[in-house]
């Protein structure tokens, strides 16, 4: 085979690839007349390369935003830089209808576009190439993700059962309070409550009864705490209350009030009237604490101590030194 024949053969392959590749390729000259129109463009527009050739792109396609696109393309000719447009700016450049009845969930094809200069031998860009990508799937997934995130954000601010703050929402408040206290040297206290024998309630009376108990405890906390305090569902049957500007004595007073109030209540569930008690652990901020999690750890130790000693009591960490 002669070299020329081989080159022609290679060119033939390249053309076949351009025709079949699943991105749109459009070459425009300085007058915005179409010089190349590949299979992707033909298939989605229904306009054959013969009919597209030498037509001004803006005359062939009404929907192509003339001024906007020229603003992007002119620098490509002039400065030989590349330009990019994304679907977030404009969903599409060419209005191509959805071609996928099963997986296509948008009415039109979302498009990204790269515009690259094509230099001729004299190093002048007399042509540019628009590369059109179908990004419908990305656009739809992104929109789905955005909606899902919105829902999650709304859900996660509050614990859906007790209507108290969720742990994830409360945690930053708590950490900020820790920083504030270390800075201002003012006392604040953390109280963690645990419902005694909660698993027994769940096992004997069912989860519905357990849920009922959780709601009552939450109500009790809400009614007892001040507006400036913040409570959260700490984990399954644990609750945490952050008492702002409260020293150990104030915190103990608060915890005792909650404990006594709750132990005096009767909670009616389907099969029985329940009496419940709480274990409370109190930790007031002190100079030994380096990090918010150490503060939490002290309150957790205290509540464990209260539980180990039979429950229905309040314990303090560190022990009152007076």
């Amino acid at each position, binding site marked *: 085979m002669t070299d020329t024949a081989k080159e022609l053969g290679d060119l033939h392959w390249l053309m076949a690839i351009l025709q079949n590749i699943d991105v749109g390729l459009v070459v425009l000259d300085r007058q915005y007349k179409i010089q190349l129109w590949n299979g992707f463009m033909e298939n989605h527009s229904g306009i054959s390369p013969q009919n597209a050739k030498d037509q001004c792109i803006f005359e062939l396609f009404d929907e192509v935003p003339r001024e906007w696109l020229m603003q992007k393309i002119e620098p490509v000719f002039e400065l030989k*830089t*590349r330009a990019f447009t*994304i679907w977030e700016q404009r969903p599409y450049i060419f209005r191509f209808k959805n071609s996928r009845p099963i997986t296509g969930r948008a009415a039109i094809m979302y498009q990204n576009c790269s515009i690259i200069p094509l230099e001729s031998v004299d190093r002048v860009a007399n042509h540019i190439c628009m590369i059109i990508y179908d990004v419908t799937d990305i656009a739809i997934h992104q929109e789905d993700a955005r909606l899902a995130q919105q829902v999650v954000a709304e859900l996660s601010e509050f614990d859906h059962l007790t209507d108290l703050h969720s742990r994830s929402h409360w945690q930053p408040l708590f950490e900020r309070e820790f920083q504030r206290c270390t800075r201002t040297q003012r006392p604040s206290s953390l109280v963690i409550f645990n419902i005694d024998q909660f698993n027994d309630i769940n096992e004997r009376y069912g989860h519905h009864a357990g849920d009922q108990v959780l709601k009552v405890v939450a109500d009790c906390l809400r009614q007892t705490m001040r507006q400036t305090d913040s409570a959260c569902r700490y984990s399954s049957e644990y609750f945490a209350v952050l008492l702002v500007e409260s020293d150990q004595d104030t915190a103990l007073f608060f915890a005792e009030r909650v404990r006594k109030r709750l132990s005096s209540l009767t909670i009616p569930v389907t099969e029985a009237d329940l009496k419940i008690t709480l274990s409370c652990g109190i930790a007031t901020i002190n100079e030994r604490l380096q990090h918010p999690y150490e503060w939490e750890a002290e309150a957790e130790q205290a509540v464990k101590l209260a539980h180990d000693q039979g429950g229905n009591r309040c314990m303090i960490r560190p022990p009152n030194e007076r």
Partner: protein
Amino acid sequence: MITERVSLTEDQRDCYQEIVNVAMGQAADRLARLLDAYVVLPIPQVNLIEANDLHMAIQGAEDNHAISSVCQGFIGSGIAGEALLLFNDTSFEDLATLMNYSGPLNRYGELELLMDVSSVLIGACIQGIGDQLGIHFNQGHPVVLGQHCQVADIVKSGNHQWNKTLAIEIHYTLEHVNIDCNLLLLFTEDSVAKLNNKIDYLLD
């Protein structure tokens, strides 16, 4: 796979700085022509950074300014990386004026301006570096990482697939107007040794 230890000598750093200086000058020239304004050129920061310190790599990252951001990958001759443009949200008003943008300055309007500026700055800077090193960089499609958010939301530290790599930071400002943006070029860990080879060749 064990990657080579990433390192940087003072001579290499100077050389990178010089190359970036030229590239950012070319980018600034394009931007100046686009906006008809004078771009103030700072000294580019060339550093090796650890993955954990990514957020620190951005000057003023601790500022609580709302920003908008675009990221774009580039690759050529086995050297790859990403360019991240962080645009101070307070810049859009002046930018719209300079670009004669007449539409409403909402999210979409800002996105248009952001894309136009990033095309110019990222493209020219990458090409400028490539030209000097004899590399043709192909650019991927830009991705908007966020609008009206904090630096911390965009440049999250941790979970990166690298330990230590080369970061180049350029802080562009415009004279007399309130336009302020940061361009961060981050190369992949594997690219650094290849880049250093090219730099050593220039130094000889």
